[in-house]
Structure formats: structure tokens, C-alpha cells
């Protein structure tokens, strides 16, 4: 369970980004965080991961407060797929990148290798195992980045624009992969069609507050609501 309770956050230069925000995400839920640029989506992710600290309010992950005391335990529960996979894949090969987190969490090398094999097999990425990160394509890198996070066996997966800069074929592969994940998912994206395919619930943000929270189709088919928040209907719902 992930909970934001009256969270407020402003950057040092004073601009308030998150304004008295409260919501709960249950285990196994798939939630899309959408909103215009600057609505606070990425900030929510950073707050949840403990990369930023709120000025007030509290954030809980499975009853653990996101703060100095339990930060390591919280981070162990959360896997984060960055928008720019180049920043996520810093080891020489895909295999070493996937081993990075399990070994840091003191899992034996044998067990970690088992995990990595399992994830690669599940995602059909065995062919990438010993490939050098600087030699794989953007689509492969994105899939490998998801694999590195799955190798952590997190309870919840956070994704920042997982389909950005991908061609339609690779985008579909990523969407199908996300759909198959059983963990709690929080996805921020402007790709509303992808959100429609992968999330059962959507939280629409505006100026650091919740403008709407509900079932995906209810929100994504509401033209007035979306347009009032600088968005538009998903392409698949737009009349030609």
C-alpha cells in the first residue's frame, strides 16, 4: 500500500509543486499519473523514492514512512524505471546491470544469477544477456532497464514515460510487458493510449493537486476534463 497524506512540496526557489496531496494506492493496482508538463508527476515519483523530502505531510510505503530511517527498506520495495534508459544502464553489460541491485542487497551470486535468468526468460530477452549496453538499440535498452528493475523483485514498479522515444513495434512490446507485470504499478506518461492499455486507475494532476481520480476509461474519455487540464483524448478515442 502506498499512501500520500497531505503532502506539500516546494522547490528551494519557492515554487509550490505539490499542494496538500493525498491519495492511496492498493497492492496490485495499476495507476497512471497524468497531467500537463509541470503538473507534479515526476516530483511525486521523486518524493515516493525519497529523492526529495516533503515540507509537510507524510508518505508511507507498506506502513514504512519514506524518510531517513527506513529509506533503504522503502527503496528495496520500489523499482524505478527512468525515462532515459542511458542513465539507468551504467554497467558494461546487461547481465552486470541486472546483477547490480540483487548483489547490493546481499543476495548470493548464485541466487542473483537465478533471478536474472528468470527475468530474462520471462521477458524473452536471453539474447541480450551478454550484450554491451552501449551497443544495444533504444528499444532493447528500455526493455533491459525494465529487466534490471524486475531483478530486484520489487513490490511496486514506478515508471517514468516508459514508452517515450520508442518506435511503434518496441512501444507495443513494452506495453505488453507492463500489462503482464503483477506488481503494483505507477506510471507517469503523456502517452494516454498506453495508460489506457496498462492502467485500471488514473490520477489526473493539475498544479500539484488531484483534478480527478477514478477508473481509466471514465477519465480518459472525458474530453472536457482533459482539455481543461491541457490534455486531449487518447488518439484511439479521437474521431477521425
Amino acid at each position, binding site marked *: 500500500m502506498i499512501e500520500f497524506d497531505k503532502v506539500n512540496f516546494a522547490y528551494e526557489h519557492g515554487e509550490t509543486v505539490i499542494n496538500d496531496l493525498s491519495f492511496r494506492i492498493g497492492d496490485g493496482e495499476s495507476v497512471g499519473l497524468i497531467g500537463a508538463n509541470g503538473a507534479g508527476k515526476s516530483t511525486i515519483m521523486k518524493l515516493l*523514492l525519497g*529523492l526529495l523530502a516533503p515540507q509537510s505531510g507524510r508518505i508511507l510505503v507498506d506502513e514504512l514512512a519514506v524518510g531517513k530511517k527506513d529509506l*533503504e527498506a522503502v*527503496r*528495496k520495495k*520500489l*523499482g*524505478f524505471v*527512468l525515462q*532515459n534508459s*542511458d*542513465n*539507468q544502464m*551504467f*554497467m*558494461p*553489460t546487461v547481465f*552486470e546491470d541486472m*546483477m*547490480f*541491485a540483487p*548483489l*547490493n*542487497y*546481499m543476495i548470493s551470486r548464485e541466487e542473483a544469477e537465478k533471478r536474472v535468468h528468470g527475468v530474462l526468460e520471462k521477458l524473452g530477452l536471453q539474447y541480450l544477456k551478454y550484450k*554491451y549496453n*552501449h*551497443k544495444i538499440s533504444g528499444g532493447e535498452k528500455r526493455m533491459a532497464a525494465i529487466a*534490471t*528493475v524486475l531483478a*530486484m523483485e520489487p513490490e511496486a514498479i514506478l515508471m517514468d514515460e516508459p514508452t517515450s522515444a520508442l518506435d511503434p513495434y518496441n512501444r507495443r512490446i513494452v506495453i505488453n510487458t507492463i500489462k503482464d507485470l503483477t506488481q503494483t504499478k505507477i506510471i507517469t506518461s503523456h502517452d494516454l493510449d498506453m495508460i489506457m492499455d496498462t492502467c485500471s486507475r488514473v490520477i489526473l494532476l493539475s498544479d500539484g493537486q488531484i483534478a480527478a481520480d477514478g477508473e481509466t476509461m471514465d477519465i480518459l474519455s472525458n474530453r472536457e476534463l482533459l482539455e481543461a487540464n491541457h490534455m486531449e483524448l487518447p488518439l484511439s478515442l479521437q474521431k477521425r
Partner: protein
Amino acid sequence: MNKMEKALAELGRMDELAMQESPVHKLNATAKLLSTVFYILTVMSFDKYDLSGIIPMLLWPVFMYQMSGINIRTCFYKLRIVLPLVMAVGIFNPLFDREPMLQIGSITISGGVISMLTLMLKGVFCLMASFLLVATTPFDSICASLRRMHVPSMLVTLLLLTYRYVGVMTEELAIMTDAYHLRAPGQKGIHVSAWGSFLGQLLLRSMDRAQELYASMLLRGYHQHFHYAYHIPFRGKDAAYLIGSCAFFVLIKWFDVSQLIGGLFV
């Protein structure tokens, strides 16, 4: 592919070299690190006029390059920017030290020339040994070895992040250089008027990316330990390699091998 992208590809190839399989690659990282440090210290300890004494020190890197399957030319190619700087060390010695030291036929060689050559060789040998270490050992394993030798974690992390930062900065530089040239066709290099903003932007952009990269490390359990680094345990053959290498360096340092070999013929 612009120059920066080529540099980036070369950085990537360093990782590939370090992942190869050879007897040298399979040695324990600490053994390699210590032997390299000892080699460098030995090379540096030679007197500036001891040209004949230092030449046999070349045998160790040549042998190790052979064993590792890495071509020495690769080393000189990768270090082509640094080598001239190293070679330039002592370049003025012949001007300041004109005392005759050696006579070969009618040619008199001054102490300055000898010391210049010795300094050049010292620099080249040290670079060869350092390159060999990096080309046969993953960088994370070197950092893990440093930690095992109780080098402060802050220092080791700084070293690791600098290594990662070079790649990030080069990537950003490649993107910015492309963007610049697309809007300044026909211009060679970057005009001096744009240097300030270009460098400022480069710094800001690469810092942003470096921060994200570090965050990605933290979020996957990194806390200044190197549990994830590939570790080959220190075995008997590593000890033998370390002791053998060091003994070889000491032997060359104590006995002028060139003079001994020369003595056989004269």
C-alpha cells in the same frame, strides 16, 4: 559519427577489453593493482641517468600484453592524446644539462639527452602498465580492490563516479556538438564567442544526468560498497603472480641487466 561519439565508442570498447578472457583477465584484481603500483614505483625509482637500467623494465608490460591478448598498438592508439604530453616531459633537459656523458663513435651524448630519454621511458612505461590494468580489469573491480585495501570509501566513490561521469559528459558533448554544427554549417569547431555558454550548458546538462545516474545507483541499493563488482578470490596463483612480478622488478632494479648482457659480448 562526430569526434565525441567516436570517443564515446572508444570508452565503451575499454569495457569490452576488460571483459575479455585471458590468463591476465582471470587474475585477482588486487594482485594486478598491487603489481601495477609496485611496477610504477620501481620505474619511478630509477635514476634519471640510468637509461640502460630502465630499458629491461619494458619486458614486464610486453610479456603481460602478450599474455592478455591485447595488442600493444591498442594501448598506444588509446593513449595517443596523453603520450605526447608524457614525451614532452624533460624535453628541455638537453638545453640545461650539456655535460658529455656518452661517446658513440664521433657522437657525444650529453647528460640532458640521457635524462630526457629516461624520463620519457618512465612516462611511457607507467602509462603502459596503467592501461594494462584498466584493460584487463573491470573498473568496478578495481574500486572494490581499493576498498578492500581500506582506501576511504569517499575517495573510491569519487573515482568511480568520475569514471562514469566521463561517459555522461562525452555523450552530452556529442549531442551539443551535433546541435551546434547543424545550426552553424561550414564552421570548423566551435566559435570562440560560443565557448562560455557552451561550456556552461555542458556542465549543467552533464551534472543533471550525472545526478540521475547516481540516483539510479542509490535506488538499486548502492551504498558505497562494491558487493556487485565481479570478484575473483585471491588464490595461490595470484600470490605467485604478485610475488613473481615484484621479484622481477627488484631483480631489474638491483642488477643492471643491460650491462650484464653487454658484458657477455665485450
